[in-house]
């Protein structure tokens, strides 16, 4: 059921507000009637005048004025309905997709890139909106116009209609052929727009590197090439659509002219009057263009269809597996989120408590033979197994690219494992509601991401509805409170995008404060002291040991000295756990870890010697 609902993004949003569309169509219909009646009315008057009768001005004008007023009001309502329709549909589609975006797995973004998502949510939504504001209503109105006028004309002379629509089948064939060609071009065009957005985003994000390597010309060439390709596709689509216009004109004008001649013939034969012919001419003028438009809006349909398909594609992209479970119990989840933070807290611990029943000997995390790779043919993890008990501190060490950070990503469910077993609180990870599972983890990652908002809001990320005291408390615990107060705007200081103006150590501690605030039972720390100097390291180390208290901690470390105290150390080698044990045990083993440790110690000694090296302070 969920699948079906998701499949019809536009059908759903389109029908919810269908009333507006109906209003538009009804308005258009009414307007048409009014206009036809008006013209008919005038035609009769013309007839009378030509026949030498007089026209009583007052009785003539009153109904006409009524018609004018009704027409004006109808036009207003019609136009408003049509345009509002597009606006609300676009909004609903945006919101639906925005929500869906949150639930998409990482691999979607790895594959498509942000550029594609951005193009879809701006440009394609605009194009789809055009479908709802212009193409669809115009199509419907044209159909109605053609039908009503045709009915009217049939009453006059059925033969006219036969002549008028004689060329229709041919027109349909041509329009179909053209629009199919158009669609192909538009698909390419849109894909290139994705690339353009992606490239532009890439270049702006990498501006520091770009500047320092004088890459301006290179970047410009890169994007100019794409823009030129886009222009080429746009021109190609123009050639096709303009061909459509010409064909449309030829194919409508010929039968219409034939109709005029036929009407003349009828008149000469005395079957219709001059007034009727005049009225016929006027009506013919009214449907001259709609007739062609009804067929050739196929072009517009297909063109907007490309954008709509692209949005559908985003909408249909599979959500993370655990999220669906929640979607099914939607009401429950909503009620849950409605509860205040404390309520949720107890809820969560109760949840964890329930899970604990399934836990053997306090084993919080159990991995059995987990395998994973980002690319199909390249495994990063080749059968990792470990068991971590509640309250333990364990460390993962090993060379760069051995998969340490990947383990963390799998723990958080950013990527699904390829094979093996992963138990969280004794339950298969797959059976967890993903959000509940993630509520168990706090993550302090290597490259800290900060939102371009105030420091306060960045820390508040950790907990919904965090109070000021809680935020300050978390910052104090993370040893960053005093530093924040030193900023001119304190907690209101806005950090730039990605926090460019904060030093690595400052960002790291804000991220720890976030973790404090989240107060999750499991803490994942990816290299928390990498980017900091020794002085700051002590402060961070202090914060780290404070936050580790009473929690199960998993830590990735490059410098082994920082993890000597861990309850268990896992040394990774080629995606496997090569050794496990305490610091002492591993040293005695004399394997990978001992080797690494020995090298580090050597360097530390060297460093001690270097301390006497020449050193001068530049300012007092």
């Amino acid at each position, binding site marked *: 059921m969920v699948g079906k609902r998701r499949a019809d993004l536009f059908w759903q949003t389109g029908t919810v507000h269908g009333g507006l569309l109906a209003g538009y169509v009804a308005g258009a219909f009414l307007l048409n009637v009014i206009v036809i009646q008006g013209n008919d009315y*005038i035609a009769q008057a013309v007839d009378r*005048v030509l026949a030498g009768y007089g026209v009583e001005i007052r009785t003539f004008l009153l109904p006409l004025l009524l018609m*004018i007023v009704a027409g004006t009001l109808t*036009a207003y309502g*019609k136009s408003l309905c049509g*345009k*509002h329709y597009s606006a609300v549909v676009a*909004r609903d589609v945006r*919101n639906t997709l*925005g929500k869906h975006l*949150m639930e998409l797995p*990482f691999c979607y*973004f*790895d594959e498509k*890139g942000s550029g594609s998502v*951005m193009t879809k949510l*701006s*440009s394609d939504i605009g194009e789809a909106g055009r479908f709802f504001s212009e193409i669809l209503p115009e199509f419907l109105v044209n159909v109605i116009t053609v039908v009503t006028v045709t009915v009217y004309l049939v009453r006059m002379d059925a033969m006219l209609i036969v002549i008028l629509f004689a060329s229709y089948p041919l027109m349909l064939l041509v329009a179909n052929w053209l629009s199919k060609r158009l669609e192909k071009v538009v698909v390419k065009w849109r894909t290139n727009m994705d690339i353009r957005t992606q490239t532009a*985003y890439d270049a702006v*994000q990498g*501006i520091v*590197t770009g500047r*320092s*390597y*004088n890459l301006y010309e290179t970047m*410009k060439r*890169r994007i100019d090439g794409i823009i*030129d390709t886009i222009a080429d596709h*746009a021109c190609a689509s*123009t050639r096709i659509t*303009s061909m459509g*216009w010409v064909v449309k*004109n030829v194919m409508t*004008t010929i039968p219409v*002219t034939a109709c*005029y001649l036929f*009407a*003349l013939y009828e008149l000469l034969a005395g079957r219709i009057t*001059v007034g009727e012919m005049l009225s016929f001419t006027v009506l013919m003028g009214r449907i001259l263009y709609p007739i062609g438009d009804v067929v050739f809006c196929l072009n517009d349909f297909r063109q907007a269809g490309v954008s709509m398909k692209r949005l559908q594609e985003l909408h249909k992209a599979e959500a993370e597996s655990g999220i669906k479970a929640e979607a099914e119990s939607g009401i429950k989840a909503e009620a849950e989120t409605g509860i205040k933070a404390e309520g949720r807290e107890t809820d969560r611990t109760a949840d964890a408590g329930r899970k604990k029943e399934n836990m053997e000997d306090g084993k919080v995390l159990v991995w059995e033979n987990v395998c994973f790779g980002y*690319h199909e043919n390249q495994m990063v993890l080749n059968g990792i197994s470990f068991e971590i008990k509640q309250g333990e501190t364990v460390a993962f*060490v*090993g*060379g760069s*690219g051995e998969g340490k*950070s990947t383990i963390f990503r799998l723990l958080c469910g*950013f990527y699904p494992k390829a094979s093996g077993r992963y138990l969280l609180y004794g339950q298969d990870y797959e059976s967890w509601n993903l959000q509940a599972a993630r509520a168990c983890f*706090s993550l302090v990652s*290597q490259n800290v991401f900060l939102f371009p908002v105030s420091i306060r809001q960045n820390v508040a*990320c950790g907990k*919904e509805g965090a109070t000021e005291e809680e935020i300050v408390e978390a910052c104090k615990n993370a040893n960053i409170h005093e530093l924040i107060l030193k900023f001119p705007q304190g907690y209101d200081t806005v950090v730039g995008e990605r926090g460019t*103006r*904060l030093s*690595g150590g400052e960002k790291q501690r804000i991220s720890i404060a976030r973790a404090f605030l989240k107060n999750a039972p499991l803490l994942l720390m990816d290299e928390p002291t990498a*980017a900091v100097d020794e002085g700051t*390291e002590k402060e961070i180390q202090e914060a780290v040991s404070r936050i580790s208290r009473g929690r199960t901690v998993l830590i990735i470390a490059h410098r082994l000295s920082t993890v000597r105290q861990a309850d268990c150390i896992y040394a990774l080698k080629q995606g496997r756990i090569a050794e496990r044990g305490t610091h002492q045990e591993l040293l005695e083993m004399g394997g990978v870890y001992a080797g690494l440790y020995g090298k580090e110690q050597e360097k*530390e000694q060297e*460093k001690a010697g270097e301390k006497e*090296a020449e050193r*001068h*302070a530049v300012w007092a």
Partner: protein
Amino acid sequence: MQSGREVHKTEKKSPVFFWFMGLMEERLPFYLAAILISTVGQAMGRIANAWLVKDIIAAAQERRTEGLAVTVAFNFFLFVVSWLVWRFGIIHYNIEAKHGIAKVEKMVFAKALRLPMEYYEKNHSGDFMSRLTFDVERAGDIYGSRLRRLSAAVISSVVYLIPMFYYSYRLTFCLLAVSLLSFAVNGYFMKPMKRLGGELSAQNGKMMEHLTDILAGMELVKIFPVGKRLLADYEAASENCCQTEKKTNRLSAALESLNCLFDLLGTLAFLGLGIVFLSYGMIGLGELTAVYTIYGTFRYVFLDIGLYLPQMMNCVANAGRLYDFMQMEEEPERYEMPDTEAGKDGTYAVTMEHISFSYEKDREIVKDFSMQVKAGSCVALVGESGCGKSTIAKLLLGFYEPWGGRISICGKSAENASLHEMRSLISYVPQEPYLYGVSIAENIAYGSRSGRPEEVPMEEIIKAAKTANAHEFIMALPDGYQTIPGERGNTLSGGEKQRIAIARAVLKNAPVLLLDEATSALDNESERLVNEALDRVCRGRTTIMIAHRSSTIAMADEVIVVGS
């Protein structure tokens, strides 16, 4: 930001429009000619149609069919010619328009890369993305449709008037007066439409900012309960957009209904005048019908002027946003700095004298900082977190203009070298390396000082990668050097990314090597490898290292402590 100023600036409407049209440069005449040709072609077709109808009606009136075949044939010939002209015009017009839009896109993008560093730190990339997608697209509508529609309406109005005057100048004159009345009313809508256009554009920018936040902070969205807030922000922005659109809709609906009113009023006026003119025998029925046929179209196109003008203003508001963006100050070619004698003789590769700088007024980061680095030596900058080490590196790279003091690199200073030249003397490895969304090979080739990374031979790239100890892990990737690191670079570890960044610096082969804690993300083994590589690279070069770790400092000839 500077929204207050922006609003003020975009008030001046005509300069923005002419500026925007001027962006077409040498293509502008062709573009305008194409509009003219297509419009004339289209109007000719319609007039031919009207003639045809007139002749047929006249034949009906007089009940005479002689010569009708000739007339029909002639009109048909006219149709075909005008269609051909029309199509020719419309294709060329569209091609010119699309190229014009491409030109604007290129210009906006180029501008986005030339702004001072401060812009990128203070403004949201979503803002720029919105300008590149939304504003360019909407402003591009001026080229793509609005201007043509408007000028087509104006031109055809004139074209239609000619035969109308020919058939009956008195009737036409009266009808024109009625139409002008409608035009005056429509004119009232221009200003509010433009204001709403500007509002919508700004709101779209906000929406884009929230969207980029969601995309860029996806990891946080998933693990912290921040997603709901971001989504709420996005939805609020989306709702704002919707509301502004609704306001615009109300205006344009009013416009449309007014036009409907004038449409029917026009018919009425025509009828009334027609009866009067007929009764006085000042016009024949054939002429009246012909005038009516043309007038039907004329009325539409004339009303279109009133309808399209406000719409055009809506787009001009977007062009106004682009205009403001283009008016923003760029990074200068060089900063105004006093000349320095130091470093001219070549003993010092890098000198910084009495440099002061701060991002904001009340928090001075760098205060009267001086250092002199001998050519060929290796210097480590150490100091507490937040003391300004990285800022010094950025000053050296010319990312910011120092408040005071002077800088020289290899004898070049602001006096005799541009920022571009100064930067070409430095190989920089930042703390958080950035990999572009191109292949690893190209990422490394971006280091090339030639400015043509695509021409860097593969051997050189491999050599650089080997020097940076990156070759082996790159070869282990399924696509080797052709691997494209994902946006989040998840497929590569921190250490691997760092080594690619170092390979890039190696390829650049600049006299000064600037390392901002280049080995922090590395484990001991890769650090050893990289340090070994750096040892190799540093030989014969001047190296400045920003160091947090003592092991890095170990390599330095000299240590400079930064801090108060």
